[in-house]
């Protein structure tokens, strides 16, 4: 192993870890909402989901 592999790199502080975790949770929730929204709208519209009139 080279010395480079043992370098700690950027070490996050506790505050940075907490902030990153809260942002990650928010992104996860947003994605889940988006998936549920598309699923529910597909059920509501049925095949018409593919028809998008101007």
């Amino acid at each position, binding site marked *: 192993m080279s010395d480079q592999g043992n370098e700690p790199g950027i070490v996050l502080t506790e505050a*940075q870890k907490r902030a*990153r975790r809260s942002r990650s949770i928010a992104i996860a929730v947003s994605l889940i909402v988006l998936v549920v929204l598309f699923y529910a709208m597909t059920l509501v*519209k049925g095949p018409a989901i593919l028809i998008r009139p101007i």
Partner: protein
Amino acid sequence: MSLISEGAEFNGTIAEPSLATVGDYLELLKPRVMSLVVFTALVGLSVAPGSIHPLTAFTALLCITVGAGASGALNMWYDFDIDAKMTRTAKRPLPSGRIQPGEALAFGLTLSVFSVVVLGLLVNILSAAILAFTIFFYAVIYTMWLKRSTPQNIVIGGAAGAFPPMIGWAAVTGSMSFEPILLFLIIFFWTPPHFWALAIYKMEDFRRAGVPMLPVVSGESNTRLQILLYSVLLVVLGVAPWPLDYAGPLYGVVAVAMGLCWMLLAMRVYRERLPADQACRHLFAFSILYLFLLFAVLMVDRGWGGLMARFAA
């Protein structure tokens, strides 16, 4: 604008790992502006003829909300230099250093694309097209161009805030007609007196930031006259849905009463002279109530029954 060099200059060092919280990102969306946008879009949606499934209506409102927030984030990204110079905006996430410019730009662009694409896929293309144009108009035409170059910035740029009822209408009907355009015009002519009243008592802020707001460029007296002139147009337009048969007597009575109050306050603003700014503060506060109440009564008078019937169907 180079993001990397800007971020580096802002901290004086290489960017640290972000400490931005979810709350900071939510602040980028300008929640108070967003609430007005959502409300006016809901009114546009509820007064529109035809039917819409509640979930489709919810999706449309969600996309309009996110799109409005996205344009707010893009505005904060571009304007963080002048925001830092104004007391009203100095504590926003960018000037206070809680979020880096590149983060705000990425956030704003991502939400813009998502809101427009989802609205186009799940509701209809026309509403998505108007939403896309609204975001473009606010972020590029108003923020990047008009705001720093002309005292008419808020007059033309105000159109961006006036589009939501049209988007709501388009979400239901997939078409456009004069009624949502009238709602657009009400907000369009509401914006200048609303914002100029604020600009008069925050004039030093705008002067320090180098933003050519009308009171800074043309003076206070001219701005007060302009407020009065725009108020006349606004009050006439505010009442217009009644004689045009878009709304009933309930709306008419409220619009006339609120219009008289507005004119009274606008006259006081016109007569008031420095160093007093109390009348401007009163008009600014009343202007928010005016728009909310006018649109709420329109929704109750015209749209509420139809909206409930649609949801029940």
